[in-house]
């Protein structure tokens, strides 16, 4: 009672003042929150604040748990709890009450409850499960506000596993009469798509409906889903391009209601979203790009007002124009636009200009030239973020001629940067550039020294690894190798003589490894001198025990002569009692090997680093031991999953939760698979008894990439020739950068704020000429493209020479035969881009992407030509992959029809049903088609190769590859040649590696015409997972035991086919017929069904009729299989 009185009293003054204070209505905060806020503002110290909040929290805690607290008071308490959490104090006791409030409160208390839940909890919080029922109830509410609240919270966070429970309700809301509900439902489905794409696969049609919604808000919301889906799979949505273009046209033309305008620009958010979608659709696709040229042009033209929002649209337009298939006049306009950004006095626009330039210089390095003076200015900009973006741009235009200047600028920045993330990123870039374009040995080593000292222990571990790999693998010239290593040794010795304590641990590790391997190259350098320098490191306090291990290993390599041995003895004595076991191990090794020089020479042979070594990852040297053990009665080894299944079957208990604790199979730790040598060094350090591995550990850790190694129980096995081709390095040609004095002046330019010099312009011009050298004229760009004149040192050859040669051959093809001038221009552009990518593009993957885009562009050219010719458009209509071939028009009137092809089906397959024969790819001499045949225990892919030319085609090589599928050839010998106008057939047996709704197999056919160059074409073939599903016959008991053993499952409610009492049987029969399932048994309202994915991966289904729907529960040992099958069941029942 006193509480009420108190409240009334506190409320009184404000009620009285209500009339006199008209603006106060907006301050409708509860007085207790007001008191709290005011209380905090009056405090003077953090400590007082903490005390006050703790008191507040204690009182909230007491009140929320009191049974007398009404929901109304609870709402007010929640607001205060949120406030306390925002101040950084934990109020986790209130989480459960927030859920309760959302559940039990009336509409507006609910609103606060939902808000508190969405602020307190995150997606993975376990309490969120308690919210599911509330959401379910509110979704069914007749009160629109409650439905809105439920949808709002669902779009922000929802437990992934519970999506099926509310999905039908949310779907239903897509048809709601209120647009706000439809809009929120679309966004909820977007959220579901992000966290569990499999669950919403079946509602793609409804997304289309949302896209066509009469309300612009709903349509805009649906674009989020489309952008996501199109970025993942642009091929699937090409047909929508015209619709998106039309929408954008209408928006740009001002057809939307006025209130979507933002500062008199029509729906800018919508425009930007559409531009993003268009660039994803038009990427590498000429015909799709052509549809959007007009609207892009219009968008550029309309966006003329000088306001941030128009610039935001322009920026997106420019990005789109440079992403899609190029059109020269648009590119010109976009380039002009970028100029406006870069030259703008507004710093935000300048930043975006630089970002846009960075994006486009990969395609057009000359664009950077136009703005070189601005770029130079930005390099000296006081705002670090501008500087940083400029460096990013410079990184993209680096070539062998400007590398020294650019790297110097980057290092300058690194020296002042305090942000770890930037440092790590930039250090990686410097190392990459240094390795790619280093003009000479000294520069390379010195730059890497700076990288190691600045990057320190934060940098990516692959930087020191690849550096040491480079050093140890060497180049073709022995003399150059020697010089580089010698320089490194000299440089490191002088570093160690200085203040090595300040160097980062990683750098010390690199130093000690290099000295161990190569200090003997410097004849006048005594090993004992090096050892003394190193032993100083051991005594330094900051040296980590990992570094000490490296040092000890180096000493093992170096301990020669009396002086060396004595240092070794001293050190090994000190560490042989170390608490660190790895260190102790190394010390022991050092001790033994320093005394036995013969053994040492065998174990750590000098220059052994060059010999490729092999790791026997299958541990076959243990075979003898295993067979002995088996003979002595030991149980045979079973992999963990097998053991788990057997256990489960034996006890009929699910052991899922314990799965992780089972020992990991040794074979899964195969050393050869490891990418990071650091990991290996750890594992070698752990294997205490394998001495041979451990004392060469230092060298192994450094060059495992692509190198194999042999070791066995008798020490080193005979070293074999490497099976794999190791990365090769080209002969470096001596080259001196003209701007080397810039490097010498580093101390001058190191000052963070440059002092204004009397002749700043001249200095800048000089800088510009050194920065933009190599980009200035087309001829020099071409020059750089040729490998013989390229002064790139350390250049590694591409891993697969065949693919790159293929790409270049396609370029030449298109150059020779492209008939129209437009094509010529396009090809020139592309060729240009490809060549310049040699110098500007950072990584080989990007190069390959470029050449890929080239192939695609070329391919669409070809399709285009055939289309206009109109010889047989239906054959190529559905081709979704690019075909690379000559673009010479070639008249060929008679192409094979499906009917003719099916007669070529092998006799042994003709008895089975086969899918429709679909064309894969075609060009003037070859047509490829395929179908798949479902046999009882396998699925056969049949590829028909039809030679439409008038000459025989030879050396046909058909290669198939897939991420999802296992592909193996069925016929004995693959097809090699096909006579003129005839068909050859190849068969492949497919099985699923990783289930997904559709599985795809990609391939490439290459062949040789009697006259001319080798040709190739790519294709892909998609087939539904159901092709791999077969019935699985088993008894109810077997079903029961299997059910418990499977760990992956999914549940969903499906439509029941209405057939009176026989509904369940009718529904299951439909599924059986359409999906080839086996009905095990039907008992009353429940049914159990089984099937298998080829070959023998079972999937079990349990169905139950419940409230007019079919509750389906799928289980399988294979991940994703239940989800995919659920999708097909749903479709099968919908289609029925």
């Amino acid at each position, binding site marked *: 009672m006193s509480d009420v009185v108190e409240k009334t009293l506190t*409320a009184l003054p404000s*009620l009285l003042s209500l009339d006199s204070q008209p603006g106060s209505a*907006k*301050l409708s*905060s509860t007085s207790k929150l007001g008191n709290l806020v005011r209380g905090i503002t009056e405090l003077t110290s953090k400590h007082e604040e903490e005390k006050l909040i703790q008191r507040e929290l204690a009182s909230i805690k007491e009140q929320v748990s009191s049974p007398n607290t009404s929901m109304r008071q609870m709402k007010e308490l929640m607001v205060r709890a949120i406030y306390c959490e925002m101040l950084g104090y934990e109020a986790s006791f209130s989480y459960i009450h927030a859920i309760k409030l959302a559940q039990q409160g009336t509409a507006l208390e609910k609103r*606060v409850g939902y808000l508190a839940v969405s602020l307190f909890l995150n997606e993975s919080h376990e309490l969120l499960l308690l919210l599911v029922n509330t959401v379910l109830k509110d979704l069914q509410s007749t009160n629109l506000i409650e439905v809105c609240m439920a949808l709002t919270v669902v779009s922000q966070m929802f437990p992934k596993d519970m999506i099926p429970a509310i999905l039908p309700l949310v779907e239903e809301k897509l048809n709601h009469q209120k647009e706000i509900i439809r809009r929120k439902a679309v966004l909820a489905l977007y959220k579901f798509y992000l966290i569990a794409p499999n669950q919403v696969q079946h509602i793609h049609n409804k997304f289309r409906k949302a896209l066509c919604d009469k309300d612009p808000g709903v349509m805009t919301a649906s674009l*989020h889903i489309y952008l996501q889906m199109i970025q993942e799979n642009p091929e699937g949505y090409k047909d929508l391009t015209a619709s998106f273009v039309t929408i954008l046209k209408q928006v740009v033309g001002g057809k939307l209601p006025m209130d979507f305008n*933002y500062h008199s620009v029509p729906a800018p958010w919508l425009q930007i979203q559409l531009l993003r979608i268009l660039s994803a659709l038009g990427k590498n696709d000429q015909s799709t790009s052509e549809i959007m040229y007009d609207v892009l042009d219009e968008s550029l033209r309309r966006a003329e007002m000088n306001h*941030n929002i128009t610039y935001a649209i322009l920026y997106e337009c420019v990005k789109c124009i440079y992403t899609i298939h190029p059109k020269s006049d648009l590119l010109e306009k976009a380039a002009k636009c970028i100029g406006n950004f870069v030259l703008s006095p507004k710093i935000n626009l300048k930043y975006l200009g630089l970002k846009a330039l960075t994006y486009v210089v990969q395609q057009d390095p000359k664009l950077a030239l136009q703005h070189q003076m601005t770029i130079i200015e930005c390099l000296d900009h006081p705002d670090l973020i501008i500087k940083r973006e400029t460096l990013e741009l410079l990184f993209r235009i680096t070539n062998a001629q400007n590398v020294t200047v650019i790297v110097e600028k980057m290092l300058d920045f690194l020296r002042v940067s305090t942000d770890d993330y930037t440092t790590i990123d930039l250090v990686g870039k410097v190392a990459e550039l240094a390795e790619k374009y280093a003009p000479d040995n000294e520069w390379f080593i010195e730059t890497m020294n700076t990288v190691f000292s600045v990057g320190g222990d934060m940098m990516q571990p692959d930087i020191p690894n690849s550096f040491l790999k480079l050093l140890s693998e060497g180049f073709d010239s022995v003399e150059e190798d020697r010089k580089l290593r010698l320089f490194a040794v000299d440089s490191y010795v002088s570093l160690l003589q200085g203040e090595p304590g300040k160097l980062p641990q990683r750098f010390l590790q690199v130093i000690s490894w290099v000295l161990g391997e190569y200090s003997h190259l410097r004849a006048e350098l005594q090993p004992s001198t090096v050892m003394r320098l190193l032993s100083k490191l051991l005594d330094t306090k900051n040296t980590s025990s990992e570094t000490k291990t490296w040092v000890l290993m180096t000493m093992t390599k170096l301990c020669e002569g009396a002086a060396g041995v004595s240092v070794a003895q001293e050190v090994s004595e000190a560490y042989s009692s170390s608490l660190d076991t790895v260190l102790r191990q190394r010390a022991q090794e050092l001790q033994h090997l320093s005394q036995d020089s013969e053994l040492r020479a065998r174990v750590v042979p000098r220059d052994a680093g060059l010999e490729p070594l092999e790791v026997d990852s299958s541990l076959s040297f243990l075979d003898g031991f295993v067979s002995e053990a088996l003979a002595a009665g030991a149980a045979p080894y079973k992999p963990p999953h097998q053991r788990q299944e057997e256990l489960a079957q034996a006890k009929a208990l699910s052991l899922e939760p314990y799965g992780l604790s089972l020992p990991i199979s040794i074979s899964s730790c195969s050393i050869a698979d490891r990418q990071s040598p650091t990991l290996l060094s750890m594992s070698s350090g752990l294997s205490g008894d394998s001495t041979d591995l451990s004392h060469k550990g230092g060298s192994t850790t450094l060059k495992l990439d692509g190198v194999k190694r042999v070791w066995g129980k008798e020490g080193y096995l005979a070293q074999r020739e490497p099976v794999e081709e190791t990365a090769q390095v080209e002969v470096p040609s001596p080259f001196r950068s003209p701007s080397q004095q810039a490097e010498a002046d580093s101390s001058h330019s190191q000052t963070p704020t440059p002092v204004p010099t009397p002749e700043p312009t001249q200095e800048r011009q000089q800088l510009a000429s050194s920065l933009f050298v190599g980009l200035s004229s087309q001829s020099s760009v071409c020059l750089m493209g040729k490998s013989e004149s390229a002064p790139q040192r350390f250049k590694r050859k591409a891993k697969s020479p065949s693919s790159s040669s293929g790409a270049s051959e396609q370029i030449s093809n298109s150059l020779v035969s492209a008939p129209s001038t437009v094509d010529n221009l396009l090809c020139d552009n592309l060729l240009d881009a490809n060549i310049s990518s040699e110098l500007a593009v950072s990584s080989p993957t990007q190069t390959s992407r470029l050449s890929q885009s080239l192939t695609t562009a070329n391919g669409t050219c070809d399709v285009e030509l055939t289309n206009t010719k109109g010889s047989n458009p239906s054959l190529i209509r559905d081709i979704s992959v690019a075909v690379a071939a000559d673009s010479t028009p070639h008249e060929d009137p008679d192409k094979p029809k499906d009917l003719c092809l099916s007669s070529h089906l092998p006799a042994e397959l003709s008895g089975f049903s086969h899918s429709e024969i679909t064309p894969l790819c075609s060009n003037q001499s070859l047509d490829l088609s395929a179908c798949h045949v479902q046999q009882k225990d396998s699925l056969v892919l049949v590829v028909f190769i039809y030679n439409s030319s008038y000459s025989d085609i030879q050396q046909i090589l058909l290669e198939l590859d897939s991420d999802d599928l296992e592909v193996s050839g069925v016929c004995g010998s693959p097809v090699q040649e096909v006579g003129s106008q005839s068909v050859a057939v190849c068969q492949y047996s497919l099985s699923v590696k990783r289930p997904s709704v559709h599985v795809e197999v990609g391939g490439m056919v290459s062949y040789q015409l009697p006259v001319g160059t080798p040709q190739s074409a790519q294709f892909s073939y998609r087939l539904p997972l159901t092709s791999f599903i077969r019935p699985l016959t088993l008894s109810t008991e077997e079903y029961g035991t299997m059910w418990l053993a499977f760990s992956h499952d999914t549940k969903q409610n499906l439509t029941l086919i209405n057939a009176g009492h026989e509904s369940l049987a009718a529904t299951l029969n439909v599924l059986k017929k359409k999906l080839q399932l086996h009905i095990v048994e039907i008992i009353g309202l429940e049914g159990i069904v089984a099937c298998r994915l080829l070959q023998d991966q079972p999937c079990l289904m349990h169905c139950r009729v419940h409230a007019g729907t079919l509750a389906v529960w799928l289980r399988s040992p294979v991940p994703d299989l239940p989800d995919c099958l659920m999708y097909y069941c749903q479709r099968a029942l919908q289609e029925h």
Partner: protein
Amino acid sequence: MQFMLLFSRQGKLRLQKWYVPLSDKERKKISRDLVQTILARKPKMCSFLEWRDLKIVYKRYASLYFCCAVEDQDNELITLEIIHRYVELLDKYFGSVCELDIIFNFEKAYFILDEFLLGGEAQETSKKNVLKAIEQADLLQEMRSFLQPVWLSVSTSAPRPVSASVQIPIIPPIAVSRPG
């Protein structure tokens, strides 16, 4: 968008909305780091920041900083305008909004944000529609409090504490019509 923060010139958090699942500890660390970094920047500096692998877009309105984190490939300028549109919405709702309104009615500010951005994406960009949705929900509230006996309704207004910085409208009157 990954998250949105509102904080005062003194570094006090006024609003936080996280669109990616992060632990409490991470949230605290991120907001502490960002508040520090942004407060240290000078007024004429770029509104964009690189922070870890994210882009931070921020803008100051009177005594309040609005700060959003987006991915690198996102459009920074449009994010800046998202902030501005949110400020416009607040301004329209509260009527010449100042920091104080947001402090005392932060739950309202959250409701408005939820109608404007949902799950990190712009939900409704029409100012009219957003405000309509909020008003409808509010209407429900007022009707209910009308039905309550007066002596039970918890007080409606509190006298504003007089502090100069928190009372400045966050959009100066001129800027509403033509912001720069």
